[in-house]
């Protein structure tokens, strides 16, 4: 398979998964580019032990998590530099606004809050939830993508649901 064929087959999956992680169009586009460059560079070493889609999912998850970590590092650096400058924190820190294009206008408020909570989950719970709940992958497929057992996936999803429900209830309590 050529890189163009792989891109045509998997571009929407990669872009949508990236969007679920970062909820920013520009960031998701950057991740998608990084994923396909990585696919191109490692296509020779791909031995076909897993399905191509599983392999691409795995690269997408890793690239998305790396992107978020790099962004957090930048934020921390900006915070530290702000301490040594005569500027207030409000001018330095701009929380990213959710502009996930898959969110319909009528659901924007609820899904923005929901993604805010998902972003606070540990990486493995977030990944299991995104792949299973949003991408509709079976637990076995999620297990293969994450390189863990099906039982571990089941447990991660359960913990993610419990944590999310707690956070949703807290939000409801503070709103009403």
């Amino acid at each position: 398979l050529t890189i163009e064929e792989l891109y045509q087959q998997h571009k929407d999956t990669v872009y949508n998964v990236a969007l679920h992680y970062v909820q920013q169009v520009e960031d998701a586009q950057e991740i998608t580019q990084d994923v396909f460059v990585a696919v191109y560079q490692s296509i020779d070493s791909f031995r076909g032990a897993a399905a191509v889609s599983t392999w691409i999912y795995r690269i997408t998850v890793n690239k998305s998590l790396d992107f978020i970590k790099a962004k957090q590092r930048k934020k921390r650096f900006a915070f530290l530099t702000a301490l040594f400058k005569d500027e207030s924190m409000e001018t330095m820190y701009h929380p990213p606004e959710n502009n996930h294009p898959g969110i319909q206008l009528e659901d924007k408020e609820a899904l923005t809050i929901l993604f805010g909570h998902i972003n606070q989950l540990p990486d493995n719970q977030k990944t299991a939830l995104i792949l299973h709940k949003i991408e509709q992958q079976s637990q076995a497929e999620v297990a293969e993508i994450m390189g863990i057992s099906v039982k571990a996936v089941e447990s991660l999803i359960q913990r993610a649901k419990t944590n999310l429900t707690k956070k949703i209830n807290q939000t409801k309590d503070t709103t009403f």
Partner: protein
Amino acid sequence: MNIDDLHKLKRVETPPFLFTRIQQKIEESRVGMMPKKFVWAVGLSFVLVLVLNVGMILSTNHQPNSLEQFAQSLDLVNDNTLYK
């Protein structure tokens, strides 16, 4: 609001210009990358030079010749040091 609200998310299409950017990035990464054969050849030649050097040092281990042995036995100074 609950977790099942996530099913309301619509699938989004990738922007059409993205593949051109990917091709550009691939080209950029290709320029920066050396061919694997070249990297291996350079690495192997370094190892070869190192092995030859070590081999030379070990094989030319200094053995005193008969004249030096004679001078040593008489406790003569056989270097060019004038003042000791």
